């Protein structure tokens, strides 16, 4: 059998056309029964230490939902996670790539400022977008048309929550530690200061650090020497462990208030000062039978180990909220899912009830209870003292 050159090209052409058609068909079929969440995540830079555990929690939720046949029993969830190296420009590029790859919901990395260009890109394509655990309450309002969401109640409410706790404990004079390197590391402390002063407290000192600092000796010396009766630190590991170590070495005996970024086993490297510390975080109800304990079981079954940080539970909640919104919307259409998410009310997540509806904090920011925990140094466990939400908090600026 002989082929002329022309016929080979023709046949190849027909073959190619057929292959393209089949690919298009399979893609279409694929698209119909899966809901793709695209995540422009940090895998290799400084935010990867929070995005890694979040990814595991998201996988647990996706497995749980897909085992039941998917969203509404018929639509499987698929996660497409790509590295954006905490670079805002690359973040926007990756979001564009994910949209082209068929993502219907966009997740960005754990910093509302770094991920803003990507979020705006998603909004331009009329897709809802949520920061994995970024906490700036001003974040969603910067994303056009209400497409922007947070996964946590934001730094303002947390700061106020800690201030109300401090006031209730009868503390009068506070010394704060914060950093201008990020929004998170000073807006939370500022909210604390504002609410603390409102409640009759006094800020006797402020110290600043730069993200990645290793020596807190000067700050610790000042704090120990001051007449403050409580220390509030906005730092997270490894800055916070270094800070607490220096406080220990200078013989600090003042109580310390820590923030949710420390809800990771790494904090136990800080040692003895944790006995003086309490921390604000989420997921108050960790009792047997709670959603949190159910999540823990599933996590253990999947990864063969305990969840190593609360970020896993936040990842789980993100998927649960998105799935609930898609089911409520009855559609994968971006604006429909956005509207449904804005109306989400009392959905059971691992870190408590998630409510986006009529949020008192700001549009797109969920109301969730905070938990106050202390540290069990021997077993390296967090023990919940109380849960709640601040009565009042500073407005979004």
């Amino acid at each position, binding site marked *: 059998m002989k082929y002329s050159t022309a016929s080979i090209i023709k046949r190849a052409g027909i073959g190619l056309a057929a292959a393209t058609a089949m690919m298009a068909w399979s893609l279409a079929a694929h698209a119909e029964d899966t809901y793709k969440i695209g995540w422009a995540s940090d895998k*290799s830079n*400084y935010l*990867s*230490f929070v995005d*890694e555990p979040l990814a595991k929690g998201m996988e647990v939720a996706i497995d749980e939902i897909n085992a039941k046949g998917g969203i509404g029993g018929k639509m499987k969830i698929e996660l497409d996670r790509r590295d954006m190296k905490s670079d805002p420009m690359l973040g926007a590029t990756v979001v564009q790539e994910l949209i082209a790859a068929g993502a219907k919901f966009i997740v960005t990395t754990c910093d509302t400022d770094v991920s803003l260009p990507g979020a705006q890109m998603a909004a331009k394509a009329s897709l809802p977008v949520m920061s994995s655990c970024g906490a700036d309450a001003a974040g969603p309002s910067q994303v056009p048309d209400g497409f922007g969401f947070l996964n946590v109640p934001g730094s303002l409410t947390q700061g106020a929550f800690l201030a109300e706790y401090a006031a209730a404990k009868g503390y009068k004079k506070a010394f704060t530690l914060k950093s*201008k390197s990020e929004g998170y590391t000073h807006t939370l402390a500022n909210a604390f200061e504002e609410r603390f002063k409102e409640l009759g407290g006094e800020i006797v*000192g*402020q*110290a*600043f650090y*730069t993200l*990645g*600092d*290793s*020596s807190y*000796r*000067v*700050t610790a*010396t*000042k704090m120990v*020497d001051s007449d403050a009766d409580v220390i509030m630190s906005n730092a997270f*590991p*490894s800055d916070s*462990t*270094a800070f607490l*170590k*220096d406080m*220990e*070495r*200078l*013989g600090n005996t003042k109580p310390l208030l820590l923030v949710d970024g420390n809800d*990771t086993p*790494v904090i*136990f*490297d*800080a*040692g003895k000062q944790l006995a003086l510390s309490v921390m604000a975080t989420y997921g108050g109800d960790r009792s047997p039978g709670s959603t949190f304990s159910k999540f823990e079981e599933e996590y253990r079954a999947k990864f063969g180990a305990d969840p*190593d940080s609360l970020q896993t539970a936040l990842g789980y909640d993100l998927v649960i909220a998105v799935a609930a919104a898609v089911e409520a919307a009855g559609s994968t259409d971006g604006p429909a899912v956005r509207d449904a998410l804005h109306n989400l009310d009392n959905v059971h997540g691992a870190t408590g009830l998630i409510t986006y509806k009529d949020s008192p904090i700001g549009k797109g920011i969920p109301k969730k209870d905070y938990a106050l925990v202390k540290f069990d140094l021997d077993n390296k466990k967090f023990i919940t003292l109380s849960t709640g939400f601040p009565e009042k908090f500073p407005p979004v600026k």
Partner: protein
Amino acid sequence: MQLALQQFINALSLGSIYALVALGVAILFSILRLANFAHGELMTTAGFTLYMTLASGWNWVLAVIAAIAASVVAALILERVAYRRLRNAQPLTLLMTSFAVSVALQSIFLLTFGARPKGIELPAFVDASFRIGGMRVQWLDIAIILITAAIVFGLTLFLRKTVIGLALRSAADDFQTTRLMGVKANALFVGAFVLSGMLAGIAALFYFATVPNVVPSSGFEPMLKGFIACVIGGLGSLPAAIVGGFLLAFLEVGSDALLSDNFSPYLDAIVFLIAIVILRWRPGGIFGVRLTAEQRV
């Protein structure tokens, strides 16, 4: 007064660490004209070695030896793989190569150990302290200051009294002539890198004794401080590096302790500004040549 004394000890202890890092940087620079940005990663290597050995239950003495050895071995590998071929390259190319090596090593640490901070389980005596009056003094600080002094003394003896030391010193003055005297160039390179690696290892011990975690990027900050110390002291001179280290520490602690809270967020900028002002006044560093090579004519 007591507060001032406490801050003085803080500065002395911090300065010792900076001085050790600066010494390690200065040795490579004075002999090979190599500004080694990867010096920080030698420290991180020692840090991860400490983490692994202590976590698997090694005696701390063995862990300390292993950490210093690891950083020396890493230095030798760097010399062989990355720098030996670049002996005659422009200083700028060397600088950028060392930077790329530093990034590569950080990524390899990330691949191997992940991004989460790893806790180093230090023996309890590291945190021990005693009181003088109302002041708390750490044994660790005393140890850091004394050991640094001993190392500086030992290094001076080594460089002055031994043949290898003599060869290294003369290479710093005139590399080509030293070779003509029959000293093997490779031996000089290896010698300089071993010394630099050792100093990085020891500095890492002190650094990770004060900071309880190690992350892939741990070495960056101390490396940068070591460089600033070298430059304000005067690059290419070992005593200048030591003085630069202490000067930087006193600058940092001093501005942090004395300035009001309003200035506290600008601390990094203030320290760099003072460093730049020093360089404006003496472009070769405080103990460096009065003018740069181009202007000496």
